[in-house]
């Protein structure tokens, strides 16, 4: 019976002593990126606690002050101010909300849809599978950003629509991975056994396949979060992402690009924020994938 029980997510297994030997650096990276992700999420949930200034109030007399500038009231702008006199650090913190909201929600939506499609395609196969795979192929054949631009011009660029645009980008990888896993697991002996015992398809999918899929899905989620954040940044950069004056890192970059010669800090910091967030997401995906390495699991 033990062999029929679903496995726990593999990434929790290596928290045993001994397995960490030789993997210290990898663990440090994992911890650092997890910490960064938590930090950004904290910024997104509770920006008021860290941001000293209102990110949307213009103060044109304070435009383009360099980092470290101290204004008349004694307040310090640690990352300087932008072209409308707003504190860059505050905008950065508040901007985390927009980027992460769009990213996370898009990921959730896309992931759910993708997993659903992938499961159906992989487990049931047949014509649904073939069509789904054609669609996935087509997706890889043209630049999504083009569709995103066109779509943004049709449906507009408020938050809800942006989430939809993200989800429509994100579902593909989830579908592919889920399908692969479902295909592989479908033929496993214990699935056949369970089915022989009379378990319904739904129960098989839910208890057995999904539980085993969790690991790879999390890996994909890590990378896809990065992809979606970059997509949002690109769209905002082109002027069709999150609308001003809501702070968002991509639009901060877009606004700042005309002044790169005069105010490098308005370009450097938002870009670093995006890079750090995406990097953390990627690193977590990377680390998860390493942990799922069969060589570590002791059992095939």
């Amino acid at each position, binding site marked *: 019976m033990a062999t029929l029980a679903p496995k726990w997510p593999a990434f929790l297994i290596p928290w045993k002593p001994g397995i960490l030997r030789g993997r210290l650096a990898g663990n440090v990276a994992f911890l650092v990126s997890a910490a960064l992700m938590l930090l950004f999420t904290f910024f997104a949930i509770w920006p008021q606690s860290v941001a000293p200034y209102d990110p949307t109030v213009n103060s044109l007399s304070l435009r383009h002050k360099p980092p470290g500038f101290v204004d008349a009231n004694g307040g310090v702008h640690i990352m300087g101010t932008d072209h409308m006199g707003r504190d860059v650090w505050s905008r950065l913190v508040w901007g985390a909300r927009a980027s992460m909201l769009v990213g996370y929600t898009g990921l959730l939506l896309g992931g759910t849809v993708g997993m659903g499609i992938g499961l159906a395609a992989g487990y049931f196969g047949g014509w649904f599978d073939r069509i789904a795979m*054609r669609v996935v192929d087509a997706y890889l054949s043209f*630049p999504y950003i*083009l*569709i995103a*631009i*066109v779509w943004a011009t049709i449906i507009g660029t408020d938050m809800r629509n942006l989430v939809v645009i993200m989800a429509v980008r994100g579902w593909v990888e989830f579908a592919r991975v889920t399908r692969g896993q479902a295909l592989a697991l479908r033929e496993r002996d214990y699935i056949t056994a369970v089915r022989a015992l009379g378990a319904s398809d739904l129960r098989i999918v839910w208890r057995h396949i999904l539980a085993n899929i969790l690991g790879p899905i999390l890996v994909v989620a890590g990378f896809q979060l990065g992809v979606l954040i970059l997509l949002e940044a690109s769209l905002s950069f*082109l002027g069709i992402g999150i609308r001003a004056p809501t702070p968002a890192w991509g639009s901060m970059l877009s606004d700042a690009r005309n002044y790169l010669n005069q105010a490098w800090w308005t370009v450097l910091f938002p*870009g670093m924020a995006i890079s750090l967030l995406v990097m953390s997401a990627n690193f977590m995906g990377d680390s998860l994938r390493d942990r799922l390495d069969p060589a570590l699991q002791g059992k095939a």
Partner: protein
Amino acid sequence: MYQFVTQRLLQALATIIVVSIVVFLFVHASGDPAALLLPEQATPEDIANLRAQLGLDRPLYIQYLAFMKDFWRGEALKSFRYNLPALPLVLGALRWTLALVCGAMFISVVLAIPLGTLAALRRGSLVDVMIRVVAVFGQSMPSFWVAMLLMLFFAVRFRVLPVSGLGFKHAILPMATLAFFQVAVLLRLFRSEMLEVIHQDYIRTARSKGLREAIVVYRHAFKNAAIPVITMVGLQFAALVTGAVVTDPIFAWPGVGFLMVNSVFLKDYPVVVGAAIVAAVVVTMINLAVDILYGILDPRIRVS
């Protein structure tokens, strides 16, 4: 083999047609281009006239069929905005994109392979971690940000390279921008493939036979690790052709990305759909070549 290729060709054709229909529908749903092609002083009559002139008042499926028929004949289908034939416009831009992408992939491969090997052989060490961190960072940076910073440093502050233009020196910055991301991807893939291969039994056998490390690495590990990397190079090449959309305008590099983004904003339908189709053709051809190559290189695939 024949069967395989034919099957894939048909699939590719189907994909291209699907892409063309989807992009066509999308782009037509995005609004009326006539109002945009005229300056602010146009009246609704002028706009209606232009619509008729451009054939936009015909039913969609007729427009689509006319488009597919005329696009390939070069002269026949004109861009709305430029009144020049659409296909040469797209092909001209494609040429520039391919030039850039070739260069970028070349740099990426040349950098990724030694670094990936180094990281794999010295797994867990500081060198490995440093390389991996740099790689992940490279993959995480928004390309337009990299483009702007590179331009600021190398062209404006320290004037070692020209800002923009066409020519070898002018291509260095755009290629470097694209390469940033690609090196990271290839490097990490190569490293993980090498790691997998190095632990295989036959490597241990070769080592125990007393063969020099270099030979072990090159002859056995390297080439087997390279197979998936080669296919990845192909896939990334294809992705770059269609993906360098945001960096092109920054360098004023007249590639497909530049053309497509401009045309989308100007609602220049023939060019948008045409460019998407041409790009899809390029991508599917490359994917096909990659699949075939993979089949040749990895006999396990052929057998299945």
